[in-house]
């Protein structure tokens, strides 16, 4: 454990920051700062999902927007039916909409997990850049489908006027909703840390480095990767449901390849295969977006230059640079 101390210390500081900053915003009555922090935490969660496939499994997916969007639409469809008191399905049996977060989360996790299983089963036949592109293709299919499918708003998306409920909490209060999201992120981070150390995580990591090695001991790398990809899709789907609840709105933009790219960018900024990589990346990205946005109409130039500098001079991401190279991905 000792060689991990600097990174562990850094991670603990990050967690402390994620608790203290919203508390400060709450006391200072800056609700928008809490909203920004919530956005960062949710996008970090999406990144943690992708990082499971990308960092641990070496599966560079440019199609995770598919799961993010499915999670979002799980929320949108259930809540819009609950909002209009019309059942989703009447025959053969009745399925009602719902405004309960736990039910929505479960639906989001299951539907994105199933999608990830199907997309993964097909995509994992390829590798390298081909894998990047085939996942992109699946994401694009869902994107164009969502745009042109009129039942749930098409490109206009779906507005949910009131945030969904969580038993015992007032989700409309920004700090309480932040608390929910932060708790979910913490739980998922703990699970991911355990997963990485479990036999499954070790085998997956080994399969990333040399697939032959795990094959010789009788484990199929394909199955390992498929499980990792499915879990990864489930987490990103959950993040999608939370993101939709943050905005009280879903739209096909959640499916766009730019969304996939952004989730990936968080991981690269923070540090690939680092447990907290996506968290750091998402926080930095959201902060930059917020701070640079007011500078000029052409603020994307500054954002681009900063990102470029990070790639060129902060190798291994921000965590890699700050916490040293030990345990870095290869």
């Amino acid at each position, binding site marked *: 454990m000792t060689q991990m101390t600097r990174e562990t210390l850094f991670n603990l500081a990050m967690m402390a920051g994620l608790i203290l900053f919203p508390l400060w915003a709450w006391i200072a009555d800056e609700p*928008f700062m809490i909203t920004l922090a919530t*956005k960062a935490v949710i996008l970090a969660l999406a990144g943690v999902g992708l990082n499971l496939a990308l960092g641990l499994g070496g599966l560079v997916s440019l199609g995770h927007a598919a799961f993010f969007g499915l999670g979002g639409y799980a929320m949108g469809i259930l809540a819009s039916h609950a909002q209009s008191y019309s059942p989703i399905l009447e025959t053969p049996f009745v399925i009602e909409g719902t405004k309960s977060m736990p039910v929505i989360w479960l639906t989001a996790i299951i539907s994105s997990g199933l999608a990830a299983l199907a997309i993964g089963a097909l995509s994992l036949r390829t590798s390298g850049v081909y894998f990047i592109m085939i996942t992109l293709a699946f994401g694009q299919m869902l994107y164009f489908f969502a745009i*042109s499918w009129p039942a749930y*708003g098409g490109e206009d998306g779906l507005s949910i*006027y009131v945030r969904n409920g969580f038993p015992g909490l007032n989700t409309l209060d920004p700090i309480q909703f932040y608390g929910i999201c932060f708790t979910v992120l913490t739980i998922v981070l703990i699970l991911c840390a355990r997963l990485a150390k479990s036999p499954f995580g070790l085998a997956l990591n080994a399969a990333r480095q040399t697939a032959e090695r795990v094959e010789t001991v009788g484990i199929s790398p394909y199955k390992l990767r498929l499980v990792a990809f499915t879990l990864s899709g489930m987490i990103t789907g959950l993040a999608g449901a939370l993101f939709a609840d943050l*905005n009280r709105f879903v739209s096909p933009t959640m499916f766009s390849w730019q969304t996939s790219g952004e989730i990936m960018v968080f991981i690269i900024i923070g540090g690939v295969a680092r447990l907290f990589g996506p968290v750091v990346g998402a926080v930095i990205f959201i902060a930059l977006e917020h701070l640079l946005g007011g500078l000029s109409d052409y603020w994307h130039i500054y954002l681009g230059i900063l990102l470029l500098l990070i790639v060129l001079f902060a190798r291994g991401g921000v965590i890699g640079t700050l916490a040293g190279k030990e345990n870095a991905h290869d």
Partner: protein
Amino acid sequence: MKLKALALASCMAALTAPVAAEGLKVGMITTLSGGGAGLGIDVRDGFMLAVSQADRKDIEVVIEDDQRKPDIAVQLADKMIQSEKVDVLTGIIWSNLAMAVVPAAVAQGKFYLSPNAGPSVLAGKGCNPNYFNVAWQNDNLHEAGGAYANTADYKNSFILAPNYPAGQDALTGYKRMYEGELAGELFTKLGQTDYASEIAQIRASGADSVYFFLPGGMGISFLKQYADSGLDIPVVGPAFSFDQGILQAVGDAALGVVNTSQWNKDIDNATNAQFVKTFQEAYGRLPSLYASQGFDTANLLMSAMDVADVSDADAFRTALQAADFDSTRGDFKFGSNNHPVQDIYVREVIKEGDIFTNKIIGTALSDHADVYAADCKF
């Protein structure tokens, strides 16, 4: 029930919160970066021109860039309401962004003045007394296109639009007024840049006219390719493909094409003449219809400020409904759903010196309101 409780709670909050009686804060969320920035910049410039001309001290405008992304727009709206504590929101260009922002904003007791988008839901079932549309309901210009087709005696139209809600609304709007037959109906891909295949189908269809709704770059591509195809069937479209910002990029291909609009720079009234002149002086370019909408939005807002204080929501709402301001469109009033009742003109693209622009050649619909007003119950 929950929704109502929330609306009530936020109205109460708005009433009890200490509001500075002397000033009004406007939050403008619009598209200032990326490919669609031209429209947002025009709305902003038109709006700010009116504000600076009025030279008042009691109005403060906060402007933010939504990057044409709905989630960014929603977060900016949260920021404006929660942190900036604005009284009025405005600025959104695109229907999908408006659908994301407007319902929540008005539910929190804010006023929203739309300078461009007018999705049908917000005009009908989803209307709200605090939501005012100063531009048009999305169907309006397309209905005018259909009405023009009747007067031009078109019997067999070919119609096309991108496959997304505003596109489907556009073709519905056209068909609502148009009395002839359809030679064909096509939905293209959103963001499509090549229309060779569609043009071939138009050629094969035996149509006597073409109506298209392809906003922005899509329209530029279509018109250039259509002109080059050698087809000489008349084309009609809404003003969105013929605004001042993009006409220069279409060039000769647009010359003589008929389009429908609620505004043009040659509408004969003093406000409009003054607007066109001062806009050119201030920004060095001719105003587009988007700029006129931004200008009208600001003037409507300031006319209400003269009569009522925004902290008295009911009085302020009544003042807005009165629409007692000098519009660049001349006559302007609101219907029962706070959407415009206005004339829609037929324009033709001409060349003035080196500049392509439009001239009014007729009126397609007079005092036109939208069909969704009947569904709107405040």
